């Protein structure tokens, strides 16, 4: 963990070498999802609600997912652009160092400018939280934080899977974007508004349901029973990272036997 922060500090220094570019990108990143959010706003202004979800309820979901996604993009960027490492042959260097491949790839790149986007997620989240008539309790706040953490783990898992694909094919990386960016777009809304199979896929295969729909039911007091279960669903989402790491190890093994 200490090493991870060392990596972070050296890359922050690197990015600060290009200061103007850093600030412009950060500001840009703040405004990018703004247009998406504006779209959301006008949608609700026209239709009022989607399947019984009000604007602020969806905005809460939007805020959680965007915060999780921007944190992931910032700190797990190494896996996001992992194909570069394979193409340039620098992954060999990773294998020559006495640390796990996971921590090294994680530390190979940070995208601090994504924190601009994080700020926007925070604003939307707070705005929604204040406008919803939720009786905030300690448990609810814990659940909300767990939702964000769980989201980070799930996005990290997807990034790791996408990166693993690079060991077999570089061209296939576009397919992986369906799950990273596509997953993000879809999970900005409560999952039960979609067709059954999409809901199922994003609950049981990639457990986004554990981040938005299920715990959201608890936050909004829509659960009749078993609310402890709904509260803890984000923890299940976190477990998603485990099989992803297993697949990653398989990928590394494949790379070491083929060298490409």
């Amino acid at each position: 963990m200490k090493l991870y922060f060392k990596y972070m500090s050296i890359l922050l220094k690197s990015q600060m070498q290009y200061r103007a570019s850093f600030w412009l990108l950060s500001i840009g990143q703040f405004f990018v999802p703004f247009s998406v959010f504006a779209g959301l706003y006008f949608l609700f202004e026209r239709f009022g609600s989607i399947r019984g979800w009000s604007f602020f309820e969806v905005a809460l979901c939007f805020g959680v997912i965007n915060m999780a996604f921007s944190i992931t993009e910032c700190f797990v960027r190494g896996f996001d652009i992992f194909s570069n490492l394979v193409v340039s042959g620098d992954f060999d260097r990773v294998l020559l160092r006495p640390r796990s491949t996971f921590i090294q790839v994680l530390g190979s790149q940070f995208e601090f400018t994504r924190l601009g986007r994080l700020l926007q997620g925070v604003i939307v989240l707070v705005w929604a939280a204040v406008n919803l008539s939720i009786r905030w309790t300690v448990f609810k706040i814990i659940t909300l934080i767990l939702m964000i953490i769980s989201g980070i783990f799930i996005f990290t898992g997807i990034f790791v899977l996408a990166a693993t694909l690079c060991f077999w094919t570089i061209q296939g990386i576009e397919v992986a974007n369906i799950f990273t960016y596509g997953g993000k777009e879809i999970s900005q809304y409560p999952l039960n508004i979609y067709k059954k199979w999409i809901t199922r896929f994003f609950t049981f295969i990639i457990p986004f349901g554990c981040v938005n729909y299920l715990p959201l039911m608890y936050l909004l007091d829509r659960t009749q029973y078993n609310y402890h279960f709904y509260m803890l669903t984000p923890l299940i989402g976190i477990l998603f990272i485990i099989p992803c790491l297993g697949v990653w190890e398989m990928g590394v093994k494949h790379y070491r036997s083929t060298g490409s």
Partner: protein
Amino acid sequence: MPQIEVSGIYKTFKVARRSSGLRQAVKSLFYREYDTVEALKDVSFTVDTGEIVGYIGPNGAGKSTTIKIISGILVPDRGKCTILGRVPWKERISHVRNIGVVFGQRTQLWWDVPVIDSYELLRDIYKIPRREYMNNLDLLVDTLDLKGIINTPVRQLSLGQRMRCELGASLLHSPGILFLDEPTIGLDAESKIAVRQFIKTINREKNVTVILTTHDMSDIEALANRILLIGNGRIVYDGNLNDLKGRFSTHKTIIINFREYNSPIDDKTLGIPGVSIVSCSQEKLTLRVDGNGILLTDIISRLSNIVDIVDISVESQPIDELIVKLYREYVI
């Protein structure tokens, strides 16, 4: 006991067959044909502590593959390999802690920050104790003359300066073995000499085993007491450089300068079999000596009866020519 033991290593790669044309390109999305390339065939050798071994061979002969296997990046198809008592691909982490690797064509330093920051990060990656780190750093800064450049970002360094920093980076954790993959590629004469000098020093003072691959035969001449030649995935020669010269060099050239002498010298006046005259002027004679049995003193004493010798130079066949000949001999 040898430090590096490699025996019977085989490695094959599957290479996707590329074909031209749009139809073929579309087809290759769904189905690909593969060619099998045998990169290494029964490669065996041992290296003792403190040796400097030059690992040479034409492009694509299997040098990089060998280096990748013994440094723990690649897993071979079969064969055994023990380095410092460990199997590189089975115990990757403890293995790489004891080796240093420099790729001449790639950097291991962080591009945008001062060299010293990269070194500090490497200290954490390798978990080098503070004291050992400081000692090594002092030694490296001294011997590689890094004082003036250690606070400069890597991207602003010249290739020669960068290579010195790369060498430093690979030795911070006091490895017992150093793999150098074309360490002098693209360097100017001065930097080349500095790099060679450093490799010699570190080998002598810290008893670091060095395996280096290169296409520059003067590197080998300056550094390696032993060469391994690989061609078509097989080790075809393993021995020292002088033996190689003895076996393959066919002739020497002798150039003799003398005081002006007017009557021409021909093969008959010289009268030594195996020595022939390449050119002759009034002040200079160029001889070709075939084979190794001829004594230089015979030639000189014969000539000194005829002319007043001013200067003599002996040129062996350039080592590059030897290597080309060697490649041809083994059809690689």
